[in-house]
Protein backbone atom coordinates (compact mmCIF):
# COMPACT_ATOMS: atom_id res chain seq x y z
CA UNK A 1 0.00 0.00 0.00
CA UNK A 2 1.38 3.37 -0.93
CA UNK A 3 0.60 6.44 1.08
CA UNK A 4 0.92 9.75 -0.64
CA UNK A 5 1.85 12.85 1.32
CA UNK A 6 -1.29 14.63 0.21
CA UNK A 7 -3.48 11.86 1.68
CA UNK A 8 -2.21 12.32 5.24
CA UNK A 9 -4.68 14.40 7.19
CA UNK A 10 -4.35 16.12 10.54
CA UNK A 11 -6.59 13.44 11.98
CA UNK A 12 -4.15 10.71 10.87
CA UNK A 13 -1.32 12.50 12.58
CA UNK A 14 -3.33 12.87 15.77
CA UNK A 15 -4.18 9.18 15.70
CA UNK A 16 -0.52 8.26 15.28
CA UNK A 17 0.40 10.53 18.17
CA UNK A 18 -2.20 8.85 20.36
CA UNK A 19 -0.91 5.40 19.41
CA UNK A 20 2.80 6.12 19.96
CA UNK A 21 2.98 8.94 22.50
CA UNK A 22 6.60 8.26 23.47
CA UNK A 23 7.84 8.67 19.92
CA UNK A 24 6.45 12.19 19.78
CA UNK A 25 6.96 13.61 23.26
CA UNK A 26 8.75 12.85 26.51
CA UNK A 27 6.77 11.22 29.26
CA UNK A 28 5.31 13.43 32.00
CA UNK A 29 7.93 12.07 34.36
CA UNK A 30 10.76 13.01 32.02
CA UNK A 31 9.17 16.40 31.59
CA UNK A 32 8.98 17.01 35.34
CA UNK A 33 12.56 15.88 35.76
CA UNK A 34 13.71 18.19 32.97
CA UNK A 35 11.88 21.26 34.27
CA UNK A 36 12.95 20.53 37.83
CA UNK A 37 16.62 20.69 36.79
CA UNK A 38 16.06 23.79 34.68
CA UNK A 39 13.95 25.45 37.34
CA UNK A 40 16.40 24.88 40.16
CA UNK A 41 19.30 26.00 37.98
CA UNK A 42 17.48 29.19 37.09
CA UNK A 43 16.40 29.79 40.69
CA UNK A 44 19.97 29.35 41.91
CA UNK A 45 21.18 31.78 39.25
CA UNK A 46 18.66 34.42 40.25
CA UNK A 47 19.51 33.90 43.92
CA UNK A 48 23.22 34.33 43.15
CA UNK A 49 22.56 37.48 41.14
CA UNK A 50 20.65 38.84 44.11
CA UNK A 51 23.18 37.67 46.70
CA UNK A 52 26.14 39.25 44.97
CA UNK A 53 24.39 42.55 44.31
CA UNK A 54 23.72 42.49 40.59
CA UNK A 55 20.32 44.06 41.25
CA UNK A 56 21.69 46.91 43.35
CA UNK A 57 22.40 50.47 42.30
CA UNK A 58 26.04 49.81 43.12
CA UNK A 59 26.25 47.41 40.18
CA UNK A 60 25.18 50.02 37.65
CA UNK A 61 27.53 52.50 39.26
CA UNK A 62 30.34 49.96 38.92
CA UNK A 63 29.54 49.32 35.27
CA UNK A 64 29.68 53.00 34.42
CA UNK A 65 32.86 53.39 36.46
CA UNK A 66 34.41 50.42 34.67
CA UNK A 67 33.65 52.01 31.32
CA UNK A 68 34.70 55.52 32.28
CA UNK A 69 37.67 54.86 34.55
CA UNK A 70 39.12 51.54 33.47
CA UNK A 71 38.39 50.90 29.80
CA UNK A 72 38.56 54.52 28.68
CA UNK A 73 41.89 55.11 30.42
CA UNK A 74 43.61 51.95 29.19
CA UNK A 75 44.25 53.42 25.75
CA UNK A 76 46.51 54.47 24.30
CA UNK A 77 49.29 52.55 26.05
CA UNK A 78 52.09 54.75 27.36
CA UNK A 79 55.34 54.35 29.27
CA UNK A 80 57.46 53.33 26.29
CA UNK A 81 60.46 54.79 28.12
CA UNK A 82 60.11 51.87 30.53
CA UNK A 83 59.77 49.34 27.75
CA UNK A 84 63.36 48.00 27.96
CA UNK A 85 62.85 47.39 31.69
CA UNK A 86 59.49 45.68 31.03
CA UNK A 87 61.10 43.46 28.40
CA UNK A 88 63.85 42.52 30.85
CA UNK A 89 61.28 41.53 33.47
CA UNK A 90 59.30 39.61 30.86
CA UNK A 91 62.55 37.76 30.17
CA UNK A 92 62.77 36.94 33.87
CA UNK A 93 59.20 35.65 33.69
CA UNK A 94 60.03 33.32 30.81
CA UNK A 95 63.19 32.19 32.62
CA UNK A 96 61.09 31.36 35.70
CA UNK A 97 58.75 29.27 33.57
CA UNK A 98 61.71 27.52 31.92
CA UNK A 99 63.51 26.58 35.15
CA UNK A 100 60.29 25.75 36.97
CA UNK A 101 59.12 23.43 34.20
CA UNK A 102 62.53 21.80 33.99
CA UNK A 103 62.71 21.19 37.75
CA UNK A 104 59.20 19.78 37.67
CA UNK A 105 60.19 17.40 34.87
CA UNK A 106 63.34 16.33 36.75
CA UNK A 107 61.41 15.63 39.98
CA UNK A 108 58.60 13.91 38.13
CA UNK A 109 60.70 11.58 35.97
CA UNK A 110 61.61 9.02 38.68
CA UNK A 111 58.27 9.46 40.46
CA UNK A 112 56.33 8.73 37.28
CA UNK A 113 57.83 5.21 37.10
CA UNK A 114 56.74 4.68 40.70
CA UNK A 115 53.24 5.82 39.75
CA UNK A 116 52.91 3.50 36.76
CA UNK A 117 50.90 0.34 37.21
CA UNK A 118 53.03 -1.71 34.82
CA UNK A 119 56.35 -0.82 36.49
CA UNK A 120 55.56 -0.71 40.21
CA UNK A 121 54.42 -4.01 41.64
CA UNK A 122 53.39 -2.62 45.01
CA UNK A 123 49.85 -1.32 44.60
CA UNK A 124 49.87 0.97 47.70
CA UNK A 125 53.13 2.58 46.56
CA UNK A 126 51.81 3.17 43.06
CA UNK A 127 48.45 4.47 44.25
CA UNK A 128 50.08 6.62 46.95
CA UNK A 129 52.41 8.27 44.44
CA UNK A 130 49.47 9.04 42.16
CA UNK A 131 47.45 10.62 44.96
CA UNK A 132 50.48 12.59 46.13
CA UNK A 133 50.81 13.99 42.60
CA UNK A 134 47.10 14.86 42.62
CA UNK A 135 47.59 16.70 45.89
CA UNK A 136 50.43 18.80 44.45
CA UNK A 137 48.32 19.59 41.41
CA UNK A 138 45.15 20.54 43.23
CA UNK A 139 46.54 23.80 44.62
CA UNK A 140 46.77 26.58 42.12
CA UNK A 141 50.17 28.10 41.20
CA UNK A 142 49.23 31.25 43.07
CA UNK A 143 48.52 29.39 46.30
CA UNK A 144 51.90 27.68 46.18
CA UNK A 145 53.51 31.01 45.29
CA UNK A 146 51.86 32.63 48.31
CA UNK A 147 53.24 29.89 50.55
CA UNK A 148 56.75 30.02 49.07
CA UNK A 149 56.89 33.81 49.28
CA UNK A 150 56.25 33.48 53.02
CA UNK A 151 58.68 30.60 53.40
CA UNK A 152 61.67 31.73 51.31
CA UNK A 153 61.02 35.39 50.67
CA UNK A 154 60.00 37.64 47.79
CA UNK A 155 61.49 37.04 44.38
CA UNK A 156 61.61 34.72 41.40
CA UNK A 157 62.77 31.72 43.44
CA UNK A 158 59.35 31.49 45.10
CA UNK A 159 57.72 31.55 41.67
CA UNK A 160 60.09 28.92 40.31
CA UNK A 161 59.31 26.65 43.26
CA UNK A 162 55.56 27.14 42.82
CA UNK A 163 55.77 26.17 39.14
CA UNK A 164 58.11 23.26 39.90
CA UNK A 165 55.75 21.82 42.53
CA UNK A 166 52.56 22.05 40.44
CA UNK A 167 54.41 20.74 37.40
CA UNK A 168 55.79 17.78 39.35
CA UNK A 169 52.19 16.78 39.98
CA UNK A 170 51.13 17.33 36.38
CA UNK A 171 54.13 15.54 34.89
CA UNK A 172 53.82 12.53 37.18
CA UNK A 173 50.29 12.14 35.84
CA UNK A 174 51.17 12.71 32.18
CA UNK A 175 54.42 10.71 32.17
CA UNK A 176 52.96 7.75 34.02
CA UNK A 177 50.09 7.64 31.53
CA UNK A 178 52.68 7.49 28.75
CA UNK A 179 54.53 4.71 30.58
CA UNK A 180 51.35 2.72 31.14
CA UNK A 181 50.66 2.84 27.41
CA UNK A 182 53.99 1.16 26.66
CA UNK A 183 54.06 -1.55 24.05
CA UNK A 184 55.51 -4.68 25.70
CA UNK A 185 56.65 -6.13 22.39
CA UNK A 186 59.61 -3.80 21.97
CA UNK A 187 60.89 -4.67 25.43
CA UNK A 188 60.43 -8.38 24.67
CA UNK A 189 62.39 -7.86 21.47
CA UNK A 190 65.37 -6.40 23.32
CA UNK A 191 65.10 -9.18 25.88
CA UNK A 192 65.03 -11.84 23.13
CA UNK A 193 68.19 -10.33 21.64
CA UNK A 194 69.87 -10.81 25.02
CA UNK A 195 69.58 -7.27 26.40
CA UNK A 196 70.00 -6.76 30.15
CA UNK A 197 67.77 -4.57 32.37
CA UNK A 198 69.50 -1.32 31.52
CA UNK A 199 69.46 -2.06 27.80
CA UNK A 200 65.80 -2.94 28.00
CA UNK A 201 65.08 0.51 29.41
CA UNK A 202 67.43 2.27 26.99
CA UNK A 203 66.26 0.55 23.80
CA UNK A 204 62.85 -0.81 24.74
CA UNK A 205 61.29 1.82 27.00
CA UNK A 206 62.88 5.22 26.39
CA UNK A 207 62.34 5.36 22.61
CA UNK A 208 58.63 4.88 23.27
CA UNK A 209 58.14 7.34 26.11
CA UNK A 210 60.70 10.10 25.49
CA UNK A 211 58.95 11.81 22.54
CA UNK A 212 55.71 11.88 24.52
CA UNK A 213 57.47 13.28 27.59
CA UNK A 214 59.36 15.88 25.59
CA UNK A 215 56.23 17.04 23.85
CA UNK A 216 54.27 17.33 27.09
CA UNK A 217 57.12 19.17 28.77
CA UNK A 218 57.36 21.74 25.99
CA UNK A 219 53.63 22.08 26.06
CA UNK A 220 53.55 22.78 29.77
CA UNK A 221 56.40 25.26 29.35
CA UNK A 222 54.11 27.23 27.06
CA UNK A 223 51.38 27.05 29.65
CA UNK A 224 53.71 28.09 32.44
CA UNK A 225 54.79 31.28 30.70
CA UNK A 226 51.17 32.34 31.17
CA UNK A 227 51.16 31.22 34.79
CA UNK A 228 54.50 32.87 35.55
CA UNK A 229 53.26 36.19 34.24
CA UNK A 230 50.75 36.45 37.11
CA UNK A 231 52.78 34.98 39.98
CA UNK A 232 54.28 38.41 40.65
CA UNK A 233 50.90 39.57 41.93
CA UNK A 234 51.71 37.85 45.22
CA UNK A 235 55.39 38.86 45.02
CA UNK A 236 56.82 35.71 43.48
CA UNK A 237 58.83 37.43 40.74
CA UNK A 238 58.12 38.15 37.12
CA UNK A 239 56.11 40.76 35.30
CA UNK A 240 52.94 40.25 37.36
CA UNK A 241 54.42 42.40 40.09
CA UNK A 242 54.81 45.38 37.77
CA UNK A 243 51.36 44.84 36.32
CA UNK A 244 49.62 44.65 39.71
CA UNK A 245 51.64 47.65 40.88
CA UNK A 246 50.62 49.79 37.90
CA UNK A 247 46.97 48.75 38.15
CA UNK A 248 46.79 49.50 41.87
CA UNK A 249 48.40 52.90 41.30
CA UNK A 250 45.81 53.68 38.56
CA UNK A 251 48.62 53.83 35.95
CA UNK A 252 46.27 52.13 33.54
CA UNK A 253 47.95 53.13 30.31
CA UNK A 254 51.24 51.68 31.44
CA UNK A 255 49.41 48.57 32.63
CA UNK A 256 47.94 48.32 29.14
CA UNK A 257 51.44 48.30 27.66
CA UNK A 258 52.44 45.50 30.03
CA UNK A 259 49.34 43.46 29.13
CA UNK A 260 50.12 43.85 25.44
CA UNK A 261 53.70 42.79 26.12
CA UNK A 262 52.49 39.68 27.95
CA UNK A 263 50.15 38.75 25.10
CA UNK A 264 52.89 39.20 22.51
CA UNK A 265 55.36 37.14 24.56
CA UNK A 266 52.82 34.36 25.14
CA UNK A 267 52.07 34.16 21.43
CA UNK A 268 55.76 34.18 20.53
CA UNK A 269 56.52 31.34 22.96
CA UNK A 270 53.51 29.36 21.71
CA UNK A 271 54.77 29.69 18.15
CA UNK A 272 58.35 28.82 19.07
CA UNK A 273 57.32 25.79 21.07
CA UNK A 274 55.07 24.59 18.26
CA UNK A 275 57.92 24.82 15.75
CA UNK A 276 60.27 23.05 18.16
CA UNK A 277 57.75 20.29 18.87
CA UNK A 278 57.29 19.67 15.17
CA UNK A 279 61.04 19.67 14.54
CA UNK A 280 61.91 17.41 17.45
CA UNK A 281 59.16 14.84 17.41
CA UNK A 282 56.78 15.61 14.60
CA UNK A 283 54.04 16.52 17.04
CA UNK A 284 51.42 18.27 14.92
CA UNK A 285 48.66 18.29 17.46
CA UNK A 286 46.67 21.46 17.71
CA UNK A 287 46.74 23.66 20.74
CA UNK A 288 44.54 22.35 23.50
CA UNK A 289 41.98 24.52 25.29
CA UNK A 290 44.31 27.47 25.54
CA UNK A 291 44.43 28.53 29.11
CA UNK A 292 44.18 25.66 31.50
CA UNK A 293 45.86 22.74 29.83
CA UNK A 294 47.18 21.60 33.21
CA UNK A 295 43.82 20.15 34.06
CA UNK A 296 43.24 18.18 30.90
Amino acid at each position, binding site marked *: MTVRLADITAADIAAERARFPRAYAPTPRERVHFWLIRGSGAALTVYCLYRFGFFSAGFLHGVSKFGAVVVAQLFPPTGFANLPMFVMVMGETIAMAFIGTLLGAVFAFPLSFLASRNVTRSRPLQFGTRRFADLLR*SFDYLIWALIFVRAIGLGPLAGIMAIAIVETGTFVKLYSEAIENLDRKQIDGVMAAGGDGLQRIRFGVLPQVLPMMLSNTLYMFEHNVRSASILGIVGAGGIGFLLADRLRAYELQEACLIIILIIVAVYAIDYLSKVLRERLIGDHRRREPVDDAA*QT
Partner: protein
Amino acid sequence: MTTPAAPRGSPARFEVEYAAYRRAKRIYAALFGAAFVVCLGAAAITAKFDVVTLFQGLPRTTEFLVKLVPPIGLATFAHDMSEWYWGIGKWLDSLLNTLLMAYLATVIGTAIGGFLSFFAARNLARHYLIYWVMRRLLEIARTVPDIVWALMFVIAFGIGPLAGILAITVHTVGAQGKLFAEVNENISPLPIDGVRAAGGTWFQEIRFAVLPQVIPNYMSYTFWRLELNVRSATIVGFVGAGGIGHDLFTSVQLLYFADVGAILLIVVATIMLIDVLSEMFRHSAIGKASFAQ
Protein backbone atom coordinates in the same frame (compact mmCIF):
# COMPACT_ATOMS: atom_id res chain seq x y z
CA MET B 1 82.06 9.18 0.98
CA THR B 2 81.09 5.78 -0.31
CA THR B 3 83.66 3.91 -2.30
CA PRO B 4 82.65 2.82 -5.76
CA ALA B 5 83.58 -0.73 -4.74
CA ALA B 6 80.52 -1.00 -2.45
CA PRO B 7 77.41 -1.47 -4.61
CA ARG B 8 73.97 -0.38 -3.52
CA GLY B 9 72.37 -2.63 -0.94
CA SER B 10 75.56 -4.43 -0.02
CA PRO B 11 76.47 -4.81 3.68
CA ALA B 12 79.59 -2.71 3.22
CA ARG B 13 77.61 0.14 1.75
CA PHE B 14 75.12 -0.20 4.60
CA GLU B 15 77.89 0.02 7.21
CA VAL B 16 79.25 3.20 5.64
CA GLU B 17 75.86 4.86 5.33
CA TYR B 18 74.80 3.80 8.80
CA ALA B 19 77.99 5.31 10.27
CA ALA B 20 77.31 8.57 8.44
CA TYR B 21 73.73 8.58 9.72
CA ARG B 22 74.87 7.98 13.30
CA ARG B 23 77.42 10.76 13.01
CA ALA B 24 74.82 13.22 11.74
CA LYS B 25 72.45 12.31 14.55
CA ARG B 26 75.17 12.76 17.16
CA ILE B 27 76.08 16.20 15.83
CA TYR B 28 72.42 17.16 15.81
CA ALA B 29 71.96 15.98 19.41
CA ALA B 30 75.13 17.76 20.54
CA LEU B 31 73.96 21.00 18.96
CA PHE B 32 70.58 20.73 20.65
CA GLY B 33 72.27 19.90 23.94
CA ALA B 34 74.53 22.93 23.65
CA ALA B 35 71.61 25.21 22.82
CA PHE B 36 69.72 23.82 25.79
CA VAL B 37 72.62 24.42 28.19
CA VAL B 38 72.99 27.99 26.91
CA CYS B 39 69.25 28.59 27.45
CA LEU B 40 69.44 27.12 30.92
CA GLY B 41 72.42 29.29 31.83
CA ALA B 42 70.73 32.42 30.51
CA ALA B 43 67.54 31.55 32.38
CA ALA B 44 69.40 30.90 35.62
CA ILE B 45 71.17 34.26 35.37
CA THR B 46 68.00 36.20 34.49
CA ALA B 47 65.94 34.62 37.25
CA LYS B 48 68.85 34.83 39.72
CA PHE B 49 68.54 31.11 40.31
CA ASP B 50 71.19 28.89 41.78
CA VAL B 51 71.13 25.55 43.46
CA VAL B 52 72.61 26.92 46.70
CA THR B 53 69.71 29.33 47.32
CA LEU B 54 67.32 26.55 46.41
CA PHE B 55 68.74 24.23 49.04
CA GLN B 56 68.82 27.03 51.58
CA GLY B 57 65.15 27.64 50.86
CA LEU B 58 64.00 24.04 51.16
CA PRO B 59 64.44 23.62 54.94
CA ARG B 60 62.63 26.89 55.52
CA THR B 61 59.76 25.64 53.38
CA THR B 62 59.55 22.44 55.40
CA GLU B 63 59.57 24.46 58.62
CA PHE B 64 56.74 26.52 57.24
CA LEU B 65 54.72 23.50 56.16
CA VAL B 66 55.13 21.91 59.60
CA LYS B 67 53.75 25.04 61.27
CA LEU B 68 50.56 24.74 59.22
CA VAL B 69 49.24 21.93 61.40
CA PRO B 70 48.99 22.61 65.14
CA PRO B 71 49.78 19.78 67.59
CA ILE B 72 46.85 17.40 67.71
CA GLY B 73 46.77 14.82 70.50
CA LEU B 74 44.84 11.60 70.22
CA ALA B 75 43.29 12.02 73.68
CA THR B 76 42.30 15.62 73.11
CA PHE B 77 41.45 15.14 69.43
CA ALA B 78 38.00 16.76 69.44
CA HIS B 79 39.18 19.71 71.46
CA ASP B 80 42.30 20.26 69.35
CA MET B 81 40.33 20.05 66.14
CA SER B 82 37.73 22.55 67.29
CA GLU B 83 40.57 24.81 68.38
CA TRP B 84 42.21 24.49 64.96
CA TYR B 85 38.97 25.05 63.10
CA TRP B 86 37.81 27.90 65.33
CA GLY B 87 36.77 29.89 62.28
CA ILE B 88 34.90 27.06 60.56
CA GLY B 89 31.62 29.02 60.27
CA LYS B 90 33.33 31.98 58.65
CA TRP B 91 35.36 29.78 56.32
CA LEU B 92 32.44 27.64 55.24
CA ASP B 93 30.57 30.84 54.46
CA SER B 94 33.50 31.97 52.30
CA LEU B 95 33.59 28.56 50.69
CA LEU B 96 29.89 28.79 49.83
CA ASN B 97 30.56 32.23 48.36
CA THR B 98 33.41 30.77 46.32
CA LEU B 99 31.26 27.97 44.92
CA LEU B 100 28.37 30.31 44.10
CA MET B 101 30.77 32.75 42.45
CA ALA B 102 32.07 29.96 40.25
CA TYR B 103 28.52 28.81 39.45
CA LEU B 104 27.25 32.24 38.50
CA ALA B 105 30.33 33.06 36.43
CA THR B 106 29.99 29.73 34.61
CA VAL B 107 26.29 30.30 33.87
CA ILE B 108 26.63 33.87 32.62
CA GLY B 109 29.93 33.24 30.85
CA THR B 110 28.64 30.13 29.11
CA ALA B 111 25.43 31.87 28.03
CA ILE B 112 27.30 34.81 26.52
CA GLY B 113 30.15 32.70 25.16
CA GLY B 114 27.72 30.20 23.66
CA PHE B 115 25.80 32.95 21.94
CA LEU B 116 28.96 34.55 20.57
CA SER B 117 30.34 31.21 19.41
CA PHE B 118 27.87 31.12 16.51
CA PHE B 119 29.44 34.29 15.16
CA ALA B 120 32.94 32.94 15.76
CA ALA B 121 32.39 29.73 13.77
CA ARG B 122 33.59 29.92 10.18
CA ASN B 123 30.66 27.89 8.84
CA LEU B 124 27.93 29.83 10.64
CA ALA B 125 29.11 33.43 10.60
CA ARG B 126 27.48 35.24 7.73
CA HIS B 127 30.50 37.42 7.02
CA TYR B 128 34.23 36.81 7.33
CA LEU B 129 34.71 40.15 9.08
CA ILE B 130 32.25 39.21 11.86
CA TYR B 131 34.10 35.93 12.30
CA TRP B 132 37.50 37.59 12.45
CA VAL B 133 36.51 40.34 14.90
CA MET B 134 34.71 37.87 17.16
CA ARG B 135 37.67 35.51 17.24
CA ARG B 136 40.04 38.32 18.25
CA LEU B 137 37.67 39.57 20.96
CA LEU B 138 37.38 36.08 22.45
CA GLU B 139 41.15 35.73 22.27
CA ILE B 140 41.69 38.91 24.29
CA ALA B 141 39.08 37.83 26.84
CA ARG B 142 40.89 34.60 27.58
CA THR B 143 44.55 35.51 27.04
CA VAL B 144 44.38 38.13 29.79
CA PRO B 145 44.46 35.97 32.95
CA ASP B 146 41.35 36.15 35.13
CA ILE B 147 43.28 37.51 38.08
CA VAL B 148 44.31 40.49 35.93
CA TRP B 149 40.66 41.05 35.01
CA ALA B 150 39.94 40.83 38.73
CA LEU B 151 42.47 43.58 39.47
CA MET B 152 40.71 45.80 36.94
CA PHE B 153 37.20 45.02 38.16
CA VAL B 154 38.23 45.68 41.75
CA ILE B 155 39.08 49.23 40.69
CA ALA B 156 35.56 49.79 39.36
CA PHE B 157 33.41 47.61 41.62
CA GLY B 158 35.39 47.80 44.84
CA ILE B 159 36.56 44.91 46.97
CA GLY B 160 34.16 41.96 47.05
CA PRO B 161 32.88 38.92 45.20
CA LEU B 162 31.21 40.97 42.45
CA ALA B 163 34.59 41.87 40.93
CA GLY B 164 35.68 38.24 41.09
CA ILE B 165 32.51 36.99 39.40
CA LEU B 166 32.89 39.48 36.56
CA ALA B 167 36.56 38.61 36.11
CA ILE B 168 35.88 34.88 35.90
CA THR B 169 32.90 35.57 33.65
CA VAL B 170 35.00 37.48 31.11
CA HIS B 171 37.56 34.71 31.03
CA THR B 172 34.80 32.09 30.71
CA VAL B 173 33.24 33.97 27.78
CA GLY B 174 36.58 33.86 25.97
CA ALA B 175 37.28 30.22 26.68
CA GLN B 176 33.76 28.90 26.06
CA GLY B 177 33.31 31.05 22.97
CA LYS B 178 36.40 29.54 21.40
CA LEU B 179 35.70 25.93 22.40
CA PHE B 180 32.05 26.12 21.37
CA ALA B 181 32.98 27.75 18.06
CA GLU B 182 35.25 24.80 17.34
CA VAL B 183 32.42 22.41 18.15
CA ASN B 184 30.16 24.41 15.81
CA GLU B 185 32.71 24.16 13.02
CA ASN B 186 32.72 20.38 13.24
CA ILE B 187 29.00 19.81 12.74
CA SER B 188 27.42 18.20 9.73
CA PRO B 189 26.09 20.84 7.29
CA LEU B 190 23.23 18.64 6.08
CA PRO B 191 20.65 19.59 8.74
CA ILE B 192 21.42 23.26 8.09
CA ASP B 193 20.74 22.77 4.39
CA GLY B 194 17.49 21.06 5.35
CA VAL B 195 16.25 23.90 7.51
CA ARG B 196 17.36 26.41 4.91
CA ALA B 197 15.56 24.47 2.15
CA ALA B 198 12.39 24.51 4.24
CA GLY B 199 12.69 28.30 4.42
CA GLY B 200 14.04 28.63 7.95
CA THR B 201 15.60 31.84 9.26
CA TRP B 202 19.11 32.10 10.72
CA PHE B 203 17.74 31.62 14.23
CA GLN B 204 15.74 28.58 13.17
CA GLU B 205 18.85 27.15 11.57
CA ILE B 206 20.70 27.52 14.86
CA ARG B 207 17.82 26.19 16.93
CA PHE B 208 16.83 23.15 14.85
CA ALA B 209 19.97 22.25 12.90
CA VAL B 210 22.95 23.29 15.01
CA LEU B 211 21.95 23.01 18.67
CA PRO B 212 20.84 19.36 18.60
CA GLN B 213 24.28 18.45 17.26
CA VAL B 214 26.36 20.47 19.68
CA ILE B 215 24.57 20.33 23.05
CA PRO B 216 26.35 17.20 24.37
CA ASN B 217 29.76 18.72 23.76
CA TYR B 218 28.64 22.03 25.24
CA MET B 219 27.52 20.22 28.39
CA SER B 220 30.80 18.43 28.76
CA TYR B 221 32.82 21.63 28.32
CA THR B 222 30.57 23.46 30.76
CA PHE B 223 31.09 20.97 33.57
CA TRP B 224 34.78 21.12 32.93
CA ARG B 225 34.69 24.91 32.99
CA LEU B 226 32.78 24.89 36.28
CA GLU B 227 35.55 22.79 37.76
CA LEU B 228 38.21 25.23 36.52
CA ASN B 229 36.19 28.22 37.69
CA VAL B 230 36.02 26.84 41.21
CA ARG B 231 39.81 26.86 41.17
CA SER B 232 39.86 30.41 39.86
CA ALA B 233 37.31 31.51 42.45
CA THR B 234 39.61 30.30 45.22
CA ILE B 235 42.43 32.60 44.08
CA VAL B 236 40.80 35.81 42.87
CA GLY B 237 40.43 36.67 46.57
CA PHE B 238 44.18 37.32 46.64
CA VAL B 239 43.53 40.66 44.96
CA GLY B 240 40.40 41.40 46.95
CA ALA B 241 37.84 39.90 44.59
CA GLY B 242 36.02 37.75 47.17
CA GLY B 243 35.84 34.10 48.05
CA ILE B 244 37.95 31.94 50.33
CA GLY B 245 41.16 33.23 48.73
CA HIS B 246 40.61 36.42 50.68
CA ASP B 247 40.67 34.56 54.02
CA LEU B 248 43.72 32.61 52.90
CA PHE B 249 45.55 35.74 51.83
CA THR B 250 44.88 37.62 55.08
CA SER B 251 45.89 34.61 57.19
CA VAL B 252 49.18 34.34 55.30
CA GLN B 253 49.84 38.06 55.64
CA LEU B 254 49.10 37.96 59.38
CA LEU B 255 51.22 34.81 59.83
CA TYR B 256 48.32 32.80 61.34
CA PHE B 257 49.91 29.54 60.24
CA ALA B 258 47.32 27.19 61.73
CA ASP B 259 44.56 29.13 59.98
CA VAL B 260 46.43 28.86 56.68
CA GLY B 261 46.69 25.10 57.14
CA ALA B 262 43.01 24.79 58.03
CA ILE B 263 41.88 26.80 54.99
CA LEU B 264 44.23 24.95 52.64
CA LEU B 265 42.74 21.67 53.82
CA ILE B 266 39.22 22.97 53.11
CA VAL B 267 40.32 24.14 49.65
CA VAL B 268 41.98 20.88 48.69
CA ALA B 269 39.03 18.82 49.91
CA THR B 270 36.65 20.98 47.88
CA ILE B 271 38.75 20.84 44.72
CA MET B 272 39.10 17.07 44.90
CA LEU B 273 35.39 16.63 45.58
CA ILE B 274 34.49 18.88 42.64
CA ASP B 275 36.86 16.91 40.40
CA VAL B 276 35.11 13.66 41.25
CA LEU B 277 31.58 15.11 40.98
CA SER B 278 32.30 16.86 37.71
CA GLU B 279 33.68 13.68 36.20
CA MET B 280 30.56 11.79 37.27
CA PHE B 281 28.20 14.41 35.82
CA ARG B 282 30.21 14.67 32.65
CA HIS B 283 30.06 10.94 32.07
CA SER B 284 26.33 10.76 32.77
CA ALA B 285 25.62 13.76 30.51
CA ILE B 286 27.64 12.37 27.62
CA GLY B 287 26.26 8.87 28.19
CA LYS B 288 22.69 10.07 27.97
CA ALA B 289 23.38 12.20 24.93
CA SER B 290 24.99 9.46 22.92
CA PHE B 291 22.21 7.10 23.94
CA ALA B 292 19.58 9.53 22.68
CA GLN B 293 21.13 9.86 19.25
